[in-house]
């Protein structure tokens, strides 16, 4: 009674022999307790022994069986199949985490993931006394600071859900950032500043995050990588690692605007952040003037709207601001 007929459309590709990938359909009765991993197994065991995917622990801890189902990042051994049928209907599309990295069916070349993960020193770096006389004691708060980040199983779900990874090959990505955060706030570690510098670089670091929250949504262990990315941003300023550049000035420039107007001065923030680089925005500025969005004379006259009770805002900034650039 509780079974349902489901069609699985699986991505098939063998990089050694196939010119192009293709999709193959498998119909099966799915029970209410079956996992996506069970369905992967059944394709292999009941339909086609050559169907390939990674699997190992079946307990949501090894991170091998990450795939995408109808575009949703999924850890196959943790995800109930019926839940996804309820969400997407009775055709489930199984695809590798990244189609352009496909080696065979669900198996991808995860080399870029491991390389970027390694780049942030994902381990505690410390001078350890080989003959310690006492334990290193950590407070509850210190542990809680990195506990959720420590749940990461390197499955790659967030990394291959991140749109920046697809368009910027230098970008380290959400899993590497979550790891960088995890070890930087570990009280035993000495490499924090170095990690903060690595992740502060323009092009590869946290400033290139588009804030899409795909990583938070994708993570099967609720690591919430973007929350850690925000913390890394703040730590750059707290620990004096932040350099003045277009991205840091953009972040800090918000305070400058809000203090003056309550609102963000949309023209000033571009000018202030870019400096001379502002010339590259001229064609857009002309388009905005042409559409009447921006009035060239307003720029000179500074006809900015102002929040009511602006004094309150100024005072709150004065007494609450903690960071400086």
């Amino acid at each position, binding site marked *: 009674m509780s079974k349902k007929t489901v069609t699985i459309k699986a991505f098939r590709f063998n990089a050694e022999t196939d010119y192009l990938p293709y999709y193959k359909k498998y119909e099966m009765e799915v029970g209410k307790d079956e996992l996506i991993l069970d369905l992967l197994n059944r394709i292999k065991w009941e339909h086609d022994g050559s169907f390939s995917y990674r699997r190992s622990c079946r307990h949501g801890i090894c991170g091998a069986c990450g795939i995408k189902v109808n*575009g949703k990042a999924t850890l196959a051994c943790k995800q109930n199949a019926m*839940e996804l049928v309820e*969400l*997407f209907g009775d055709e489930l599309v199984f695809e590798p985490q990244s189609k352009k990295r496909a080696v065979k069916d669900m198996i991808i070349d995860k080399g870029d993931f491991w390389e970027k993960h390694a780049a942030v020193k994902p381990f505690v770096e410390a001078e350890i006394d080989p003959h310690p006389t006492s334990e290193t004691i950590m407070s509850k708060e210190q542990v809680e600071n990195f506990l959720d980040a420590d749940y990461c199983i390197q499955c790659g779900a967030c990394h291959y859900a991140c*749109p*920046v990874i697809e*368009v*910027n090959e230098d970008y380290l990505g959400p899993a590497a950032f979550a790891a960088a955060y995890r070890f930087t706030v570990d009280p035993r570690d000495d490499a924090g500043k170095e990690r903060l510098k690595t992740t502060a670089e*323009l092009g590869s670091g946290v*400033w*290139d*995050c*588009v*804030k*899409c*929250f*795909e990583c938070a*949504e994708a993570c099967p262990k609720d690591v*919430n990588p973007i929350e850690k990315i*925000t913390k890394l941003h*703040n730590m750059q*300023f707290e620990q004096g690692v932040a350099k003045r*550049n*277009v991205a840091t000035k*953009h*972040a800090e420039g*918000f*305070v400058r*605007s*809000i203090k003056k107007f*309550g*609102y*963000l001065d*949309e023209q000033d923030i*571009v000018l202030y*952040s*870019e400096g001379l680089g502002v010339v*590259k925005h001229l*064609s*857009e500025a002309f*388009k905005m003037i*042409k*559409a*009447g*969005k*921006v009035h060239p004379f307003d720029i000179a006259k500074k006809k*900015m709207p102002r*929040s*009511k*009770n602006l*004094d*309150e*805002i100024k005072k*709150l*900034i004065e007494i*609450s*601001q*903690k*960071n400086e*650039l």
Partner: protein
Amino acid sequence: MSQLKYALYTGCTARESTPELLSSTLAVAKKLGIEIVLLDEASCCGASHLQDFDEFLSLVLNARNICYAEKLGLPMITICNTCQLNTVMTKERLDNDPEMKAKVNEKLAEVGLEYKGTSTVRHFLYALIDDYGLENIREKVEVPLSHFNIAPFYGCHNLRPSHIHYKHNAPLAPNSEIGEGGGESAIQEVELMEKYTHESPYAPTSLDSLIEALEGKSVDYESKNKCCGFHVDLQAPETSNALSGTALLDAIDNNADLMVTPCPLCQLNMDLKQESAGKQLGRDIELPVLHMPQMVALALGCSKEEIGLKFNVTKATDLI
């Protein structure tokens, strides 16, 4: 229906480079008999960038904005996805973390304010759909959009993270207490399907059903729940162009006549950067991009001035 009344947090964009967003929002509210009180005291939400610089300061400023809705005793609505998310993330934090709430209130007390957590904060899109109702909107349509294929572009911050969305953008369940929070812990404790009931980040429907209620044809395309790249436009324009351009081309390739979005930051990026995105991707891009309230105003027969299509950068004036 008892009269709906909201405190509107406009955000910065509606007061500056997208005046058409504010005028069309107010026009739609007027047509539907929704009462709007403008939160003129509110400041910028920080748009996630202030949050990167000084998280505590962003909590204080956003809490102050919510205070003004609370003082009016009204639910707050937003017309920008990024304002929505940054405001509810503040609300979530303060409603769940009494220590942080006390620290923030200590600062607010200096200007005679107190954050209590008594106002809900939702995007206007969901107020229209869940409070006013699609059927009631359908009845008010004067100019059906039946000759348009409309590509809905949802914008990240209304969809993700779902553990925040389901708690704040969904209508309040009966008996639940405003300000109880719970979204932060929901990331671990709430079942997937419950988080996705109101709007699934992988298969969203709200904007599609609004388009259909206005008798338009909604375009199904892969990029509708993807990111436009706005937030890195200054430091990484190539990333931003690649993302916005890909989504626009996806809509065009699926026969869209226009695109519509509830987020003015998506709208600005997708409307203004078509030429540079097209250059980078090697294809011509031309597609009018409307704000969600502009589309509704169009169907409700609001005036040309109110809809404000002349402010759209990619020519949209022909749509009337």
